[in-house]
């Protein structure tokens, strides 16, 4: 089995007196989709934020391609080849879709003065959005006026476009329609096939099982364990994700998985 691209060991993270992570170990290999699952508030988002350079861990080590690494900013992580879709999407509402898409990594043209190549940027944006199943009215619409799902799609398309070695997706399908969801899952399968390591966070067991190769479950800031694909079935996984507590009784077709 290939070496992990990124390996996080014994990660702890405290915010003042709040203990968000209490020793989490995790790795991603090239060409695999590693699902990070867990209850609300388990610490998933906090964990991937330390992975993408937003937070510095209070304790623990990060190894990137075999070398110990300390990202001092998200820009560092990006330059190392890690692209992230944050749960809050990291978009600027007042800026246009294109400008958000290329924020921080603008394509340029011009020999002496490197101008922002807006035409190319607009074209790429419209194209990538269409691939994800969203037909934008215009690339200069402000992101703040997009619908929730449209906005999420921009964030995903952006990360996929720039994701070089590792692609981290924090609940990417939460606001998406069925068509867009299936596009995103198909995209994950595609980039994984290209050798990119994918970290996928979801509350939807079916989505996780559809694309995941390994499954790590967090609970209250700690790892509950990691399972390979095939070693675990939907019901077991769902049980782990709920933190071992029983679910409310429900009529209807929800019997199995939610």
């Amino acid at each position: 089995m290939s070496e992990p691209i990124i390996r996080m060991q014994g990660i702890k993270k405290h915010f003042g007196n709040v203990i968000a992570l209490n020793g989490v170990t995790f790795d991603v290999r090239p060409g695999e989709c590693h699902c990070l699952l867990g209850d609300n508030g388990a610490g998933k988002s906090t964990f991937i934020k330390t992975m993408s350079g937003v937070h510095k861990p209070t304790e623990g080590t990060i190894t990137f391609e075999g070398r110990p690494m300390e990202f001092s900013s998200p820009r560092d992580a990006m330059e190392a080849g890690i692209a992230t879709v944050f749960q809050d999407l990291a978009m600027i509402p007042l800026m246009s879709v294109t400008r958000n898409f290329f924020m921080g990594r603008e394509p340029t043209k011009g020999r002496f003065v490197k101008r922002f190549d807006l035409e190319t940027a607009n074209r790429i944006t419209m194209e990538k959005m269409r691939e994800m199943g969203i037909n934008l009215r215009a690339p200069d619409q402000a992101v703040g006026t997009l619908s929730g799902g449209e906005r999420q799609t921009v964030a995903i398309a952006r990360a996929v476009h720039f994701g070089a070695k590792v692609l981290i997706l924090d609940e990417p399908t939460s606001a998406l329609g069925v068509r867009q969801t299936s596009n995103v899952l198909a995209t994950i399968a595609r980039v994984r096939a290209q050798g990119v390591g994918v970290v996928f966070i979801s509350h939807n067991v079916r989505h996780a099982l559809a694309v995941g190769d390994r499954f790590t479950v967090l609970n209250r800031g700690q790892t509950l364990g990691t399972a390979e694909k095939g070693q675990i079935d939907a019901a077991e996984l769902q049980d782990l994700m709920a933190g071992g507590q029983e679910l409310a009784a429900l009529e209807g077709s929800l019997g199995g998985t939610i």
Partner: protein
Amino acid sequence: MSATTAAPDERVRTESLTTRLMKRPELGAVGGVILVTIFFLVTASPAMFTLAGVMNFLTPAAQLGIIGIAAAMLMIGGEFDLSIGSMIAFAGMVFGVLVVSMGLPLILAIPMTMAVAASLGAVNGAIVLRTGLPSFIVTLAFLFILRGASLVGLKVFTGGATQLRGVRDAVAGDWLTPIFSGHAFGGLFRWMADQGWIATLASGNPAVPGVPVSILWFLGFAAVATFVLLRMPAGNWIFATGGDRVAASNSGVPVRRVKISLFMLTACAAALVAIITVIDTGSTDARRGFMKEFEAIIAAVIGGCLLTGGYGSAIGAFFGAIIFGMVTIGLTYTGFDQDWFQVFLGGMLLLAVVFNNAIRKRVTGER
């Protein structure tokens, strides 16, 4: 994946060219300029809109505009600089001392003044970033510190006075002087006067000896700033930084670098205004630039910048400075009782901004 790719989208109504133009934040302040112009065309003495009159109100507008545009860029980037006015006094003092007391040529004195200003701007920025304090309070401290330091410096170098003189003599003959002071296109204007196309003074000289260079600097800076904001990656970073600092940083924008650069830019703009006015008046004193930080912010806000950052334009600040300059100077051309000056100033400002806003709203539908 879908058939509607190229076909016009039925979810969009067509809109006219004017609508599309008026939507641009850059053009928001044009309405105000037109309104104010009409007001003065009606009420003011015709002397105001002669060539000489226009140059007369554009000169203070230009000086204000240079710092206004810088303030607008900083404001778009999400920060304030209240030390602009004091920086004008301080940079003026430094420049005056270099030129008069040290006798340096402009080619050395100007870069040195700029370097001093830029490093003070960087200090401002570094403190803001390091401590996480609002820039309002940090630059406010520098407002006091630099104002006080200008006074102390002037007293030391003049032996007790608050005014340092003799700059004009010191720079006379320097080949850089015409770039920072006086009038451009003097020959052209003289020729036009000779042809009788423009008014002349009793002495036969043209009433307007040329275009004051500060106006050229103003135009040039507005053009460059607009280009940077709209067409350069750096512009995108500025908008992103001001729009949401965390989101921008998470998306890979070098937020700290952007902010520090903007603080340096603002300080340099103040230093430029200082150099221009010090050469022009031939002296500097401890009160130079008093309250200018305030006027710079006013120009930016009239021009449509949001105080919360992330929105605005350099062209807006350009027109904002012109509106402000026109109103302050223009009232003198009218027959109104000058005691009412401030009432008019406030009223006109309000009217111009409300008018801008009403037009923009009407044009873009609700927002």
